């Protein structure tokens, strides 16, 4: 085999836990790199997921899940797959097993698993590892930009029987997620928010005014770009669903992932055609939301009117 890309992955991804990428990217990035490697190896060996399953006893769903970076990784399964794919070189096997080990390492949010729905955990991992997130939200203000007060109002709405303790844990989780906007190598966050998300109150007007002031402050961060899609533009394709995000990981070899939330769940998209579509939609929205003047002026106007 000639130099597969994942053997050239920087030490932060495959080595012994060097800082840099590992600081933030951790298990999820390792999982994505491992998944891409497993998929290329399987195709290189000319096997379908079903054939690989027959050869190893690993269920086909687990093989596909690992290749997409979504399933938990069992070292025993991975070792079996490497054998079936003819990965014999000791150095190569140990690099890949190191990656698999990393993919299982504990992430900070595992302590919050009781308040994280299953469908959301993969997104959380990607969000915390991403180098760039482009996002459109028609409603509400995106989680990474929310104040505790605004977050509390939204969480109460969707969890009617929530206890005070659980409510605070959910708020705390949301605030910890926001650390990626303030780290040494911050996330580039490019957001288009529909004007409706700014106008519709969550709780009393004072909560909304705090939220708008917070957004105005965030505009000063060079790696955060907030755009507002004003009411004067009509309906658009993204009106049809919930928030859309396209996430890009620091490893340039990994494909983007699109994530579309809907009521009570979400869908992930990873094919090139799907990504072309969602990136195009985000491009169109970004162009429509291109400011005539500074975004801060528009936010200040909303603040005065709230």
């Amino acid at each position, binding site marked *: 085999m000639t130099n597969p890309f994942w053997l050239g992955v920087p030490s932060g991804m495959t080595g012994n836990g060097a800082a840099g990428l590992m600081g933030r990217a951790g298990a999820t990035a390792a999982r994505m790199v491992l998944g891409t490697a497993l998929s290329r190896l399987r195709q290189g060996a000319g096997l379908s997921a079903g054939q690989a399953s027959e050869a190893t006893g690993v269920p086909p769903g687990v093989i596909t899940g690992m290749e997409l970076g979504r399933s938990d990784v069992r070292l025993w399964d991975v070792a079996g797959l490497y054998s079936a794919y003819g990965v014999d070189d000791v150095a190569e096997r140990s690099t890949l097993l190191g990656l698999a080990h990393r993919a299982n390492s504990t992430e900070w949010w595992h302590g919050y698993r009781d308040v994280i729905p299953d469908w959301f955990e993969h997104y959380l991992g990607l969000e915390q590892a991403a180098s760039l997130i482009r996002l459109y939200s028609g409603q509400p203000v995106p989680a990474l930009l929310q104040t505790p007060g605004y977050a509390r109002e939204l969480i109460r709405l969707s969890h009617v029987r929530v206890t005070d303790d659980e409510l605070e844990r959910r708020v705390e989780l949301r605030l910890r997620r926001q650390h990626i906007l303030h780290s040494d190598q911050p996330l580039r966050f*490019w957001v288009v928010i529909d004007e409706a998300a700014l106008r519709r109150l969550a709780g009393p007007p004072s909560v909304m005014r705090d939220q708008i002031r917070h957004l105005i402050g965030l505009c000063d961060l060079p790696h955060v770009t907030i755009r507002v899609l004003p009411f004067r533009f009509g309906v658009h394709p993204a009106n049809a669903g919930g928030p859309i995000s396209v996430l890009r990981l620091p490893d340039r070899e990994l494909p983007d992932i699109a994530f579309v939330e809907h009521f009570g769940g979400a869908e992930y998209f990873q094919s*090139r*055609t*799907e*990504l072309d579509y969602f990136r195009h939609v985000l491009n*169109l929205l970004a*162009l429509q939301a*291109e400011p005539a003047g500074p975004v801060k002026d528009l936010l200040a106007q909303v603040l005065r009117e709230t």
Partner: protein
Amino acid sequence: MTDENPSAQLASSAQIDTSVSHSARIWDYWLGGKDNYPVDRQVGDQITRMLPDIVKHARADRMFLGRAVRFLAGEAGIRQFLDIGTGLPTVDNTHEVAQRVAPECRIVYVDNDPLVLVHARALLTSTPAGATDYLHADLRDPGDVLAGAARTLDFTRPVAITILGVLWHITDDDEALAIIRRLMGSVPSGSYLAVAQPTLEVTGEKMAAAIRYWNEHGTPPGIHRTPAQIASLLDGLELVEPGVVSSTRWRPEATPFGEPEAIDQFCAVARKP
């Protein structure tokens, strides 16, 4: 959604034409970016078949930009940059290279493609010490470029102007010369100009065929020039060593493997006396 009809869902808008390959987007594809469209990949793959070195050209061009901007911000002490033909954001964009040398550098990005501008505005943002601005303007209207850039740059102090991926789109030599004279006439002595331009010096007919193919399937059209033609566009300016050369050979980083292989993208940096 299925994979069968790649372009069906990607309706063109007034600002994004999804049916024709665009210069900035095909460049993004060759540089390994993800912000291109199916039509760019189709045309890009076809050109790669005709001219397998094109990916090397794209990378060498970016690496030249890096070395030239490091020279300009470093040795030449320039703190103001006018980057005409920005392209889609990639690694080591002009302001990142310049502000690594001197965080107070001020950069104006100019492009005529709205998609490029919206990406640049969102992603090419300055350090707090310096400044970046973004101009929707066309190199063919240098007066407009200069007027817009004057919001951010002080034209009584030296400015480095870079015209890298777009000089070849000015297909008439007289027009190219007039544009360069107008731009360089508006900046003081001690200012610089960096240019890059496809040639036929290395690959000959292969490059000529690739350019013909581009002119039939992409936009905007372009031409090749000879190194002598490139030099004559810089008439009246002092060429910085080593003059008009293949991009890989402009002040290359030292390697143990001798001189880098020449490619058909030539470049030069010149100083206004």
